[in-house]
Each structure stands twice: as C-alpha cells, then as structure tokens.
C-alpha cells in the first residue's frame, strides 16, 4: 500500500474549485469549493454517487469541460502551473505530458478507425520526444508493458477487434506513454468483469508506483476505492464532505453521508435487512436557495448550526469533515467498526 502524503509539495493540488453549467432551466452549481491534493506516488480516490461531481472535477482539471460549463473560482496547481488559468497553448503542452487521463469507456474513447499502435505512437511523437521513426517500435513496447500478449500483432488491430479489457490496457498505454506525473483514472473499470477489473487495477497501481505518479482514481465503488487508494475524498452534490486516510475513513467515518454510504455497500452486511438505504435524493443544484450544507435536507443529524456556512479545512489536517455535527470521533482503544446502529438510524 502506498503511504499517505508527507510534507512534500503535492503533485496536483486542487483548491476551492467551483464549476457552473449554464442550462436552459437555470444555472447548475455543479461544484462548490472542491479542494484536495495528491502527492507523488500517492493514490487518491474520489468517491460519490452519480451526480456528485466526480467526473466534472476531472474534466475541469483537464480543461475539457463541456462548453456550457465554466470554472468560476479555484485553482488546480500542477508543478507550479495553474491549469485553470493557463492558456490553451500551455494546456496543450501539459496535457498528455504531465497529466493524463484514462476515460470511463475505452471503446468510445479510442479512435475507432486508427490502429491502436498508431494511437500510442501519436502520443509518443507529440509528447514523448520520440523520433517519428522509432515511435511504432516504442508503441509495441508500451503494449507489452501493459501486459498485452503478442504486442507486435496487436499494435495493428483496431479497437473493435479487441475485448473491453484489452481496450482499457491500450487506454492505459496511451495515458502513460509520455510518463506523466499525474494520472486521472475516471471509473477505469466500469463495464469490465471483476476478474478483469482486478488485473487492470493491479496494472495501474503497479505502473503508478514504478513511475512515482500521483493517481486520482474516480469511482462509485467504495470497496474498490478502499482497496486501491491511500486516501479517500467523499463527494456529495458538488461538495467534498469528507477527506481522510482510507483505513481511518472506513473505521471511523465522521460525516453522516460517509457512514450511510458504507452502510449501503453490500459487502458490509451479513443479510439484506442489515443494509441501510440513504433517504432522500440529491438536491436540485439549480435552486437559488441551496442550503450551505447540501446534505442537510437528507441528514438525520441536522442541527441549527447547519444553516451557517460549512466549516473550512484547517491547514495541515489529515482528516477533514465538512459537518457541524459529525459522527463522534473514536475514543482511544475502542476499535469501533463501520455500520453501527447510530449511523444507520
């Protein structure tokens, strides 16, 4: 397991990111004051249900938001450069070389009418300082590195000729071709079988560790995040509600939403009746009267304090919770496990 970030400068630091989408029916405040960071060689997971803003965060950082989306505040610092205020020409140099992304559906993200070897060679030539003549051979080596058997033959294949797992390996090869310092993996194994998922995640983890890459791993699967990341950032309706080291988060979730999310994960229960659902739905992010805590309308622990602006993360805190009435912190020596009656209620 990769150890948590120490005092080094983070490879990627996102600070106070706010994103809005202008739609016909009003402005959607998709992200509000999202902050987190990932150190060199560290894997950080962004976890949340659909609509929580995980992918929007990744897209905003990569500068590939939908034209209707707009970053209204915040910074995303990568090696001294703020990606959010960088010029398109600067971004084009950084993307692919210093920060790369693995997309959710490899089959639609790859170019369907170009052999996969050439797609890898394109990145090598553009970002990897590889001479045009040597690129095809290096592309084959990349395919070998991501565990594709018979890479010389496979390099000539088109995406439709490969299985989902193979396509995802090609995506990883493209993302890692220029040895970036930050990798964003947006649900890299959704739609793959569990056996393939395990192999692909091993591959991402191993290569990230070998290259000392920071990985932002986006998933809706809390158990998978726990297995793969040293730190978990839980998102709900565009807010970061909790940010903590993995073991701490699972043993002592502090935010009520985190507690309920853990209690709803099938793996946590011995029978169906023990699983708890989360009451209510995400608030409509177009509303003008959104409460400061976007979870407060679903929250069983709501108090009067919840109408004030959310608490800010104190500098240097390792466990941040955006809540005025969090679940109790552990008392020393009492190894309380998840899904207690309290956070199910």
């Amino acid at each position: 397991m990769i150890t948590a970030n120490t005092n080094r400068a983070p490879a990627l630091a996102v600070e106070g990111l706010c994103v809005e989408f202008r739609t016909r029916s009003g402005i959607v405040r998709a992200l509000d004051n999202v902050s987190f960071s990932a150190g060199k060689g560290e894997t950080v997971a962004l976890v949340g249900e659909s609509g929580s803003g995980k992918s929007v965060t990744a897209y905003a950082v990569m500068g590939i938001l939908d034209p209707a989306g707009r970053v209204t505040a915040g910074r995303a610092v990568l090696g001294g450069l703020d990606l959010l205020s960088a010029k398109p020409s600067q971004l084009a140099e950084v993307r692919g070389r210093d920060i790369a992304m693995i997309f959710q559906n490899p089959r639609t993200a790859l170019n369907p009418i170009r052999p996969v070897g050439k797609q890898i060679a394109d990145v090598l030539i553009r970002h990897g300082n590889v001479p045009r003549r040597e690129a095809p051979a290096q592309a084959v080596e990349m395919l070998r590195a991501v565990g594709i058997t018979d890479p010389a033959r496979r390099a000539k294949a088109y995406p439709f000729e490969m299985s989902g797992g193979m396509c995802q390996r090609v995506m990883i090869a493209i993302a890692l071709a220029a040895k970036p310092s930050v990798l964003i993996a947006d649900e890299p194994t959704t739609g793959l079988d569990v056996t393939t998922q395990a192999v692909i995640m091993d591959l991402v983890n191993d290569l990230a560790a070998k290259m000392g890459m920071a990985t932002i791993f986006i998933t809706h699967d809390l158990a998978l995040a726990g297995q793969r990341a040293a730190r978990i950032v839980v998102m709900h309706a565009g807010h970061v509600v909790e940010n903590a080291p993995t073991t701490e988060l699972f043993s002592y979730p502090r935010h009520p939403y985190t507690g309920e999310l853990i209690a709803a994960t099938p793996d946590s229960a011995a029978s169906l009746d023990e699983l708890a659902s989360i009451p209510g739905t995400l608030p409509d992010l177009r509303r003008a009267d959104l409460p400061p805590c976007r979870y407060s309308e679903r929250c069983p622990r709501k108090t009067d304090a919840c109408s004030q602006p959310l608490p800010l993360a104190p500098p240097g805190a390792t466990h941040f919770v955006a809540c005025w009435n969090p679940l109790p912190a552990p008392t020393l020596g009492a190894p309380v496990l998840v899904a207690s009656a309290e956070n199910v209620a």
Partner: protein
Amino acid sequence: MTALLDVAEFSKLFPVTGTSSSWQRLRQRFQGGPEKLSKVHAVDNVSFVIEKGETVGLVGESGCGKSTLVRALTRLIDASDGSVKLGDRELTLTPAHEFARDPDRARIQMVFQDAGESVNPRFTAFDAIADPLRRLRHLKGKALRERVESVAGQCGLPLQLLTRFPHQLSGGQRARVGIARAIAVEPDLLVLDEPTAALDVSVQVVILQLLQRLKKEFGMSYLFVSHDLSVVKLLCDRVLVMYLGKIVEAGPAVEVFEHPLHPYTQALVAAVPRLHEDGAERLRLTGEPRSPIDPDPHVCRFYGRCPRGIHDCTAAMPDLRRFGARQVACHFAEEFLPPAPAKA
C-alpha cells in the same frame, strides 16, 4: 421441494458467418464438398433445476453465455439442443415466436438490465405495466386500471408517477416500473438480468429489499443474473457459476463464496473488492478466455488461464461432479474441499 424449472443438457450454438468471403463460399458450392459452418458454443450442455420459491444466482464474466441462457429460458430464442421443463410442460417444443401467445408465457417473466432502455420510450409507466396485462390477461377498463395501480403500489411506485414517460423518471423509479411490469401477470419464475447494475448503491439497497419482499409475498422463484458477487451472496440461496458456456460450479451461495472449489470461482471471489481487506492472497487470472468457436471437446474450457492447469486438463474435459450439495467441474476439486467431509 418440487422443481419449477428443470433444464437438462441444454445447448445453444450460433453459426459463425463471415469467416470466409461470399466469393469463397460460392466457389466452394460449385466445387462441391460439404460446407462446414463454424459454431459459437454459447451455452454447452448445461443442466440445472430451480425449485419453487428458490432464488438462484447466475454469475460469470461477460461472454460466458449468461444472457444467452437466460434468453433461451425465457423463450425469447430457441434452443439448439436439450430440454427445458416448466413443471410438466416441455417448453422447447414450442418455437419462440409462438410462445409469445402461449398461456404459459405469463409464468416466466423477465426484468431487463436497464429499465431506461427496455421500456418503450413512448409508453407511460401505466402503459408499460398494462401492456402484459392487456396481452396475456386480456384485462380492460376499470379492471386493468385497478390491477396496474395495485401492482405499482406493491412495487413502491407512487400512483402520480404512472402518467410519466421513462425519461421523466429516476433510475430507481424506472427499475420499479420494470419490476412491476414483470410481476403484473403473477409469474412463477422471475428472471432478473442485472436489475441493479445501473443504480447507485443507495438505490440498489432499496430495490434489492423490494425484490426480497415481493418474493416472500408471492412465492415466486428468481433466477438472478449478476456480476456483483456481494449482491448475489445476500440475495440468493444457490448460485451457478458459468465459464465459457459451461457451469463450472454450483451450490449454496454462502458455501460457494466462502470455500470456492473451482479455480475460476476462486479467482472470481478473490477479485471482489472488500471494505475490510482480510489480507487474502490475490489470485489473478492471466490471459484471455479461450475462443468459444468450435472448442475442443476434450480440453477444459478454463485451461490456459487456470493457475492449476496441467496436461490432464487437455486430455479430458472435467465433468460436473457432485460433492454433497455442491457440484464442481474440475479434476482437482477434492483438494479444495473443506475439512469437514461432505457426503458424496
């Protein structure tokens, strides 16, 4: 217990087209000689029983034949070989296109994977649920309305949502419409093809609990297809594990997942991420599955990816052997049997 559905030596093969060009096929026809068509062995000699009131899970990776098996059992496609008996009725004798008007059609119903895709987008929720009642029960007017409303109520679908179209409903509400449509005609067997795959965990819990409650209320049997082993473990009494068209392991769900006997099941269980990692060794599958096109009948389907695979595995296909309540198709099953010996 009485068997509700008895599947025996069931196979489904698909001919492979396009392996040779039409010009080559034409030349072959003129030059004579038998035209040999390759076949995909999607489901190969599968036998199992679903008892009344039982929930059977069907797991396996994509391409293993789960969906083909399910579509054949629900009589949407015809079988190539074997028998499927619903009670005393042999279903394979009726072609799929005639079965749509058969009185027994109502006894097997299906909940499809993505309710957003499988409900007619131009039908309101009411019409979607009413459709099978109109066709199979010939209900009309007030009786139809009452039945639809009572089923919607049982599935926790608020009545004011019945006038909405699928795109106006949330994922969980759509899943409820899909379930209500399937149980409206009171089937004996409900086939669920990954009903919660598209849902968030918080919604998934509610739908799973709904399914469990409906089963108790109506005494239905479930065939639950899923790739999520933790869900199968919670919901199912028994589980069938499929690999490349064959059942490789079957048995009580808890036993299979706690002491998997087949190497494939072991890899499957090891691959499931857990909230609290117990430090179990990571068993990983390498390589790709073998081709399902004209497979060698003497080679174990799992050979090549199997961590155990030895020469014997290419000499004889392991049969599905019985160990107490469990069945395994592996030459080495004995080695993994739990210490308390199961009665053979």
